[in-house]
Every structure is written in structure tokens, then in C-alpha cells.
């Protein structure tokens, strides 16, 4: 076990534990805070993979902006554990089955794309996550999908303004 492996296992355990706590917490505010911990753990993994830019952007966008808005809504609506709608057993069962199906799709996708047997993760190597390489890739090879996704954001913004200006 070297330092990086210790860090890897620590972050993984932290991520999985916090993810479970997101689901188990009765209080929605606690769930959001545990979710923020998950994002921190994932950013730690990015740093181990030498992708510092992705790590910090993950924190700024998810932990810094989106989760603040989540907290905002929960605090303003004053959601408490006892006001949460009760789900019956069938709903829970359906949730478990659909979640399991989704997991299966994800796992099979990952397994099909690359041959994973006998390979280990490259820690602290590779430099695709550095801002220079990422920027080059985004603005040369993937420039069209990148620009199209920005149009998507614009349309979401316009939609929000339209909803906000109802009167």
C-alpha cells in the first residue's frame, strides 16, 4: 500500500458511505450536505488521476452552485421529515427494480467500451484532465458538440426567464 492507494481507498469509502447517507437521511438538508461530501470525494479522485481542472470545476459547479440552489429550495419550502410523502411498498419495489436496471446498463456499457481485465487505474499519470489539453480537445475535436450544448444552456436560460416573467 503506498500513499496513493491509501488515499484512493479512503476517498472511495468516503464517497460510498456519503452516498448511502444521502439516501438514508430523514432530513433533506442533511441529504444535501452528504451529497456535497460525495462531490468532494469525487473531486479527490479526479486529483488522484491528475485532472485538477476537472476536480475544481466539479466543486465550483456542483458543490458551489447547484447544491446551494438545492439547499435554497429546501430551506425556503421548509421541507421536514414528517411532511415528506409516504411511498407504499410497490413504489419502493419499482424504484429498486428500475435502479437495478440502470446500474446494469451502466456496468455493461463500461465493460463493452474497453477491455478491463487485468488493468489497473493509472494514478497521477496521464494529462488529459489538465486545462490545456482539455481546452484543446474541446475547441478542436469536439467543437461542434461543445457549441451545441452551449445553445442548450441558452435555451434553458431563456426558458427560466420566460417562466419568471409570467405576468
Amino acid at each position: 500500500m503506498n500513499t496513493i492507494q491509501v488515499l484512493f481507498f479512503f476517498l472511495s469509502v468516503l464517497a460510498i458511505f456519503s452516498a448511502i447517507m444521502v439516501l438514508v437521511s430523514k432530513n433533506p438538508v442533511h441529504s444535501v450536505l452528504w451529497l456535497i461530501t460525495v462531490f468532494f470525494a469525487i473531486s479527490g479522485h479526479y486529483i488522484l488521476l491528475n485532472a485538477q481542472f476537472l476536480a475544481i470545476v466539479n466543486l465550483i459547479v456542483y458543490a458551489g452552485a447547484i447544491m446551494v440552489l438545492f439547499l435554497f429550495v429546501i430551506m425556503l419550502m421548509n421541507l421536514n421529515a414528517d411532511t415528506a410523502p409516504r411511498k407504499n411498498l410497490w413504489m419502493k419495489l419499482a424504484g429498486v427494480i428500475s435502479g437495478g436496471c440502470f446500474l446494469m446498463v451502466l456496468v455493461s456499457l463500461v465493460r463493452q467500451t474497453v477491455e478491463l481485465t487485468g488493468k489497473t487505474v493509472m494514478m497521477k499519470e496521464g494529462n488529459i484532465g489538465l486545462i490545456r489539453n482539455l481546452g484543446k480537445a474541446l475547441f478542436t475535436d469536439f467543437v461542434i458538440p461543445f457549441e451545441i450544448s452551449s445553445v442548450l444552456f441558452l435555451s434553458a436560460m431563456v426558458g427560466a426567464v420566460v417562466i419568471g416573467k409570467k405576468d
Partner: protein
Amino acid sequence: MTLLAFDWAFLLEKLILIAIIVLASLGIALYTTFAERKVAGALQDRPGPNRAGPFGLFQPFADGLKLIMKEEIIPNTSNKGLFILGPALAMAAALMTCAVIPWSSHIEVGGHKIDLQVADINIGVLYIFGVVSLGVYGIMIGGWASNNKFSLMAALRGASQAISYELAMGLSLIAVLMISGSLSLKTIVDGQMAAGGFWNIVYQPLGFIIFFICALAECNRTPFDLPEAENELNMGYHQEYSSMKLGFYLFSEYVNMIMSSAVMASLYFGGYDIPFLDESTLPVNTAAILGVVALLAKIVFFLFLFMWIRWTIPRFRYDQLMHVGWKNLIPLALFNMLLTGAVILWQQG
């Protein structure tokens, strides 16, 4: 044990550096509270605190002692864990910024080169941005966990204000990054120190003004101190707090001010650069110490500016605050970015 196979000297060096920087920031923050009251006194034509020690110099210690000795009250209906987490987060987020600020060039101790910067990561500016955006949580969690309507309203105000002004701040930062071509604060400062170069304020006067206004808003300083507007919200998000937890909230505001002053000095005013002096002609250690002094002088200047504004300008109304942020600063910052890009293209072309 391969677990322990990393450079212990390196770790020790960094730990000492972190300890010095954190203690120094806290010490400066301690006296910033004193300076604030003295400046307020001067602006309002009264002496300010002058009882404890010569010129009232021991006043911060008296204040700190008073806060520590006071009774610790945690409201019964509050969320206890989060109630304690709130001020801790506010303080931690305030102090974390200091990791990427280059306090000076390097010193040499016994042939060993020590950088006076905790971490020169290649995304330094983004790191600061990330930490700033996390600073909201201290206010939000504290305000919500108090289980008090005024605290909650203040916390929501603080969060929405911080999110709104982060945008304009980020946009004005992009223009600086376009000029310096790097996200590392060290590289940005070195670029301004280079012979024949000017400080970024020369190229980015509009960007600096936008950044400064946003920094005022991010630190919850007047005219943007809506989260603690005492005449409409009693006291603000820290209403239920007492003793040193309150102290942490009040103190983190001053640490935030110091850190944002240091960031502004590094981004726009050459960091540890001494104007009209070529540092490379001096011995290494002398240059480094003079650099620290220069940076501190710039920080003190900005701190004074913060206080001057606080005791001169009244508070915005909430809708005015949002109006300024979204309809004035963001378009202005976008224009500044466009202008910078156009000029850079024209110079290259």
C-alpha cells in the same frame, strides 16, 4: 513501510509555512477589527477604542477574551450538529484561500530553496473561486440550523447575493486570465513583475473595479451587508449565536477581507512586486522579505479602502443590490471581456 515513503522534509516545510500563514492571517484579522473601530472613530470624529493599553492597542485581546468567556448558548430547537458546523465552515472556507496566494518569491535556508507559497497549483485562480463559492455554506447552514426566521431570511439573502456576484467576479477574472495566459497565481504575479511590463491594473481598470465591487459583496461588506441588516433582520444570520461561535462568524468576515485583498493585490497590483525596483539585483532573502512587506502594504491599503467604504456609504436596498449585480455588473464584465479579447487579437494579428 512504503506508506511513509514520501518527503518528510517537504511535509514539515509546508506544515510550518501553513502554520505561519494561518497564524499571521488570524493575527492580522485580530488587529483589523481594531483598525476598523479606529477608522470608524476617525470618520465619525471620535477617538475610537482607547482604554485598553496605549492607544487602545490591547482592545482586540479584551474583545476576544470577552467572547471566549461568555456563556455558550445553543438554542433548544436548533439543529445542534449543523449549528456547530456553520461557524466552523465559515472560518475554514475563509482560511483555505491562503493556500494558493504567493506571499513572496523564495527564500534560501542552508542551500535549501523554500517557496513562500503553500501550493503553486496550475489552477490557482479557480481554486480561489471554488473556495469562495463554498463560503456560502457557512452562512446558509448557520442561518438554517438556528431555526429562526430572521436568521433564515438573512442566510438566503447572503447566499443569493454571493451567487449573483460570483458571476460578475468570474467574468472579470477571465479578462485577467486572457492577458496572463495562466491560471497559476504565481505565473500571473511573475508576468506583472517582468521587466518592461506593467501591473494588470493598467490593462484592466474596468475589470478591477468590477472585481472590487464583487469582493465587497462576497465579504458581506457595506454597501452589500444585506445579510446582517440589523434594522430589518434584527441582527442577521448569526442572531442565535453567542460566545466564540459568534466570534468565528465575525472573525471570518475579517479573514475574508484579508484574503480578498491579497487576491486583488496579486491579480491586479503585482502581488509582492515592489514598484520601480528590480528585485533580481537584491540578495534572494532580502528580496523575499521586502516582497512580503510590499504585499502586506498593498493588503493594508485595500483593508483601509474596505473600511473607508463601509463607514461612508449607506446600505443598498435588496432589489437595488440584485439590479446592480445582474443588470449592470454582468453586462459590464462581459463587455470588458469582449474588449480585452478584441485588443489581444488585434495586437497579435
